[in-house]
């Protein structure tokens, strides 16, 4: 039985496309299309006669060059998957930079909460803050855009957590990650991210698919075997990511995400 799925995404779609190119036989019956576009070009599209059509030259060029299509016939698919698109633990980490909520081990260990630089926040307020921030990101915006055009199932798969490489070499952009790891708060940070993401994606009329568990290390990182060898989102997919890239996952990661998608879409009542 065939499963026709259109995968949309930004640069993170490359991992899925590489996985398909490497081992299509792993998913018998799956008939995927991969439509990638950088930055927010996916939003620069319109619904016309049942098709998702680029509304500008840049998007049209991205569709042609990266997906090999002029537009997307929405009626030709059983489901849609939006991958990456800035739904990541980084949003939760931003909130964690200057606040703590009940349940985090570091908070439980503090004796004088009011004296610290971090603010005490309720879990609900922290989650609401993350939800509101995520709602402005490409993923939910594109899901909302797409939902207005189709009633078929839509999934949004998580952007990969940053690479476990940061444990060996600290980065200023992942300061909150380092703090969470050293404070023992990483598990709580991961949990609130997945809670907030699931809610914000559900509000858009889709279903959130979390990062595959085997790829996660220390709750908020992606294990190196799923990051090394990641490819850029180019037409041929033959350019590697820069060595200091900590954001993009590889084909092994993409394969597990496709496994999840197939499994999820196999469930009745998915999104």
């Amino acid at each position, binding site marked *: 039985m065939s499963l026709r799925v259109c995968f949309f995404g930004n640069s993170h779609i490359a991992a899925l496309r590489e996985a398909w190119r490497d081992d299509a036989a792993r998913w018998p019956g799956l008939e995927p299309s991969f439509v990638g576009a950088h930055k927010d070009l996916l939003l620069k599209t319109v619904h016309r006669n049942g098709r998702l059509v680029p509304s500008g030259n840049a998007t049209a060029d991205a569709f042609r060059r990266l997906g090999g299509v002029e537009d997307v016939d929405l009626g030709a698919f059983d489901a849609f998957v939006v991958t990456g698109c800035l739904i990541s633990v980084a*949003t939760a980490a*931003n*909130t964690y*930079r*200057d*606040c703590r909520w*009940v349940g985090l081990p570091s908070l439980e260990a503090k004796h004088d*909460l*009011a004296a610290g630089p971090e*603010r*005490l*926040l*309720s*879990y*609900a*307020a*922290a989650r*609401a*803050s993350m939800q*509101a*921030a995520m709602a402005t990101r490409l993923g939910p915006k594109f899901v909302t855009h797409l939902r207005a055009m189709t009633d078929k199932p839509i999934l949004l798969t998580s952007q990969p957590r940053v690479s476990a490489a940061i444990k060996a070499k600290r980065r200023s952009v992942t300061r909150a990650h380092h703090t969470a790891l050293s404070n023992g708060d990483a598990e709580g940070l991961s949990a609130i991210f997945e809670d907030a993401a699931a809610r914000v994606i559900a509000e858009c009329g889709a279903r959130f698919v979390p990062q595959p568990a085997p790829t996660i290390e220390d709750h908020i990182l992606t294990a190196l075997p799923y990051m090394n060898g990641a490819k850029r989102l180019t037409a041929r997919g033959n350019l590697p990511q820069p060595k200091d890239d900590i954001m993009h996952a590889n084909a092994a990661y993409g394969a597990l995400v496709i496994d999840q998608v197939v499994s999820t879409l196999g469930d009745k009542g998915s999104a």
Partner: protein
Amino acid sequence: MSHPYVGMPPEAFWKTAVAETDREAFPGLYRPAFAITHDTTVATAGSCFAQHIGRYLRIAGCTVLDAEPPPRSMPEPVAQRYGYSLFSGRYGNVYTARQMRQLLEEVADGSAEHRFVWENDGRYRDAFRPTVEPEGLDSAEEVILHRNYHLERTSRMLQQADVFVFTLGLTEAWEDRETGRVFPICPGVAGGTFDPDQHVFRNFTHAEILADLYAIQAQLRRFNPEMKLLVTVSPVPLTATATGQHVLEATSWSKATLRAAAGEFVAQSKDAAYFPSYEIVTHPASGGPWFEPNLRSVKIEAVEKVMAIFLEAHGLLDGAPAEPSQSTEQNEDDSDSEDDLICDDLLLQAFAG
């Protein structure tokens, strides 16, 4: 002939101070008793109208203290929904002088009590600020944790305040019979359960409010002996009354009582002043009408007029943006400008039938 009216200044006479004056600027209406400059640290509290004062002082470049600022990444609408940055503490609306007094006493000497944690359907709320956590918290212990944090942060904030601005909103409140502590909103409306044996209606008198204002000033001086107190009265009418009177009559009684108490307090107090925002919005001589079609929400133009008079008197208008903040501009497009302020007592409107 000689008599006391000879030689009085123009603002003493209706003709020169009102009928024939510039009623947009009302020169002489507000003469600051003490200075507020860009270097002054200001704390605000009170009814929902007090939010305007803090907001416009910030626009004017003043230092408005915030005991519990939201996380930097929290979008403003979320922050407002969770009670952040509406006032200088995350205490929510403080409608009565009694509520302000008891809050300051608790900040100075007290700690959170389990008896004032409200439970509804497995969610827990702080009885003295039931709306700052819209979904409630998971446990009574968490409410206590958050309240003690709130009290400690408010204490630290007050120690830094040069001027405390307090806007009196209501005379009516509901009191816990056993302890005498008042709630910002009737139990059962935004949490808790109303119990006629436990919850007593109070309509505070002039004498009680006056005593509370003195107590507020005394408490504030414990945090900073030099702290000045600026009192205002909210022009916003009552959403509902429990007096049995018509709500229009109850509003007049309430505002007149607050205004009289504020006037007497300021007349007898050193380092206290009154700013006539109430008069500027409600008096027919001030033009208007300054209320929205619901006859309750104050129009943004009225707020601008009030705050322009205030800032001008303090020499803070120059250099201040002529327009309110971006968020206020956006709200001007809303059909219901009440969304602009967080007013807990609006919850009573749901029971208007």
